[in-house]
């Protein structure tokens, strides 16, 4: 018992008190800045493995970006990644960052369905569905609940059954073999319910976009409440995205 208390004491304080204004350590590829420097735009666009860079004017689509860092390494005068991890949005278009922009990713409060903030603001239960996810996004969603990030302090938790959930969080490009299970899970979740896409694979299919083994029809059928970019999304990106959606920050 005394030994356990000692161990407990040695841990000190591990939680991040302010998840909104926290700093992530070291280098981090968060929201990019695209300068007005003149570069060979075609070469720049071709550098990108997932066609996330669009030309004239140069834009980066965070819903397609796998944050590989290649563009910033090859064209450092044109593209720099900042440590701004608050890159989630409720609108797909807001994930596109244009040349010369240096402001937080837009979040459209008006577009949030009323019932989301009325019903879920202080208690949101989520069911996670991995549909071809590579286990990195899944590990980060788990981490969102660990002692460091402690997401449950906001009343946001993952639950075991869709029947207890207020929405689903999808990771992975949606493999054909998971499409039916995903559909059943969504249908088993009571109304009203939300859908969150976590990670580039879920948002656009990422590097798997043109694989015949995936089936993205689910995404086309429903409206999405929150897009959380990243490869995988950082726990702070996920938590801040949810706080925005719930109108808490």
């Amino acid at each position: 018992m005394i030994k356990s208390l000692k161990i407990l004491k040695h841990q000190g304080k591990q939680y991040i008190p302010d998840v909104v204004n926290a700093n992530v350590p070291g280098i981090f590829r968060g929201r990019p800045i695209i300068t007005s420097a003149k570069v060979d735009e075609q070469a720049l666009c071709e550098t990108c493995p997932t066609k996330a860079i669009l030309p004239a004017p140069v834009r980066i689509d965070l819903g397609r970006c796998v944050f590989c860092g290649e563009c910033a390494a090859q064209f450092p005068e044109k593209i720099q990644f900042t440590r701004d991890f608050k890159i989630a949005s409720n609108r797909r278009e807001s994930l596109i960052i244009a040349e010369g922009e240096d402001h937080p990713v837009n979040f459209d409060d008006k577009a949030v369905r009323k019932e989301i903030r009325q019903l879920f603001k202080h208690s949101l239960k989520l069911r996670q569905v991995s549909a071809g996810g590579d286990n990195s996004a899944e590990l980060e969603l788990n981490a969102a609940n660990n002692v460091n990030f402690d997401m449950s302090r906001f009343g946001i938790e993952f639950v075991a059954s869709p029947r207890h959930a207020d929405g689903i969080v999808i990771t992975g490009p949606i493999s054909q073999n998971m499409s039916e299970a995903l559909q059943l899970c969504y249908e088993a979740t009571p109304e009203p319910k939300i859908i969150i896409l976590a990670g580039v694979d879920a948002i656009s299919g990422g590097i798997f976009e043109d694989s015949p083994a995936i089936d993205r029809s689910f995404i086309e059928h429903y409206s999405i409440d929150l897009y959380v970019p990243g490869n995988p999304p950082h726990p702070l990106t996920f938590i801040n995205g949810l706080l925005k959606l719930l109108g808490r920050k």
Partner: protein
Amino acid sequence: MNKYFLKIKNNQAVPVPSIPVYDYEVFYSYCYGLLQNKKRYHCVNYFGYRIESDITLIMVIADDGEQCLYVAASRIPNNTRLKSFAGSLSAMEKFEREIHEQFGIEFTDHPWLKPVRHSSSSLNSYVFFSSDSEELHEVGVGPIHAGIIEPGHFRFICNGEQILSLEIQLGYQHRGIESLMVNKNNILQRTLLAENIAGDTTVGHTTAFANLWESLEGYNTPYDLHFCRTLAQEIERIAMHTADLSALCADVAYQLGNAVFGRLRTPIINFFQEWSGNRFAKGLIRPGKVLYPFSDTLAQRLLKVLDDFETDFVEMGEQLFSLPSALSRFEKTGTLDSNTALRCGFVGMVARTCNLSRDIRHSHPYNLYGKTLSHEPIMLNSGDVFARAFLRYKEVIQSIEYLRILVNYLPNKFTKQSSLSGMASKNTLVVSLVEGWRGEICHCAITDHQGKVIVYKIKDPSFHNWKALELAVRNNEISDFPICNKSFNLSYCGHDL
């Protein structure tokens, strides 16, 4: 017998025409001749590829004594029936199931040609193994599980609380990576595919790919790239082993261990972020270059992170492994014996907990293993949950030592621009083996007469070790299934590809 094979080393590029091709019966007897000596030889890959209407089978057998690989081939017409290796060598059963699934080849005495990953058939119509007994009942779990984990289906047949049989059906995560590896013809896209095979083994799989690709282009890998890959592999091992210890504590309701090991993983993966901008080291391993050099400042940072980590890790570990309430759940739960491990061809950590030495860092060294680091595998013999937990603990401490050695050998320059062309050598085979934190990773590539990749085979250690979970839970209480499962922590996506 081995004179009938082409002898190669890990990561050695060889011309495809130098691989001896035999009629299937001869091929069978030569391969069987080696494989029956299970201690010394094991099959690291056995796969097929189609050229016109014929199928070429390639067998790669590792000789752990000689530190080399033996390769042979056989060409067979479509729709043939073949004598199965699995009829007498259990370790071969999954390779043949995969060949059956991909090419429709029937293996006459194979025990069960069950689909591996349902790449072309529907998973929903699959009929599980079942029993007609009125005394037994079945329990189905998945594909979606209670926690935030990947999908797979577990079907138990139980006698009361006791598990008689477990059948695991995978394939839900299938993303078609092997065909994408062939179809994408850009190095960066292929690298990203390798990074996404299993995100928890980003470094392991990407290293296997990068080592392979450099050999395929005939590129002489510079020291700094070997250095970064070796360092990153040991960091990944520490991070994932620590995460697993946390999960094991959670499953025996030991809150303190769960929280402490859980938070200890954070500084390790945050170090990856400091180095490479990503907590899983995505972006770090690239063929022919490294975008994020390992500076002296980072070396000092790493030593500091490790010092702080080690004190708390050892304190927590000593407490956990002397706690009767935890030990009574770990010991003699989910036990495998070393004969089973040998017979079924288990690899990596699972083999090493059954006193079976399987560790590529030792047996087929690559990168800085066998040079700067002379690795001796840690072996345990009880084959139970305890062994799988304790091995992780000991391997973490070993990896910390390795990292401390490595930082004394910092490269003085880094290759920031790649000189690779993206064009592979023509008609070439390369086999790349890596010891990931779970175990043996094997990537194989073959190019045609124009240097185009025509086959890319990926094997995660989970390919073999899922079977270990099925066998380990027999006769255990079903309530011990979660802890057995965690103690293996196998990859769904790495298996399904």
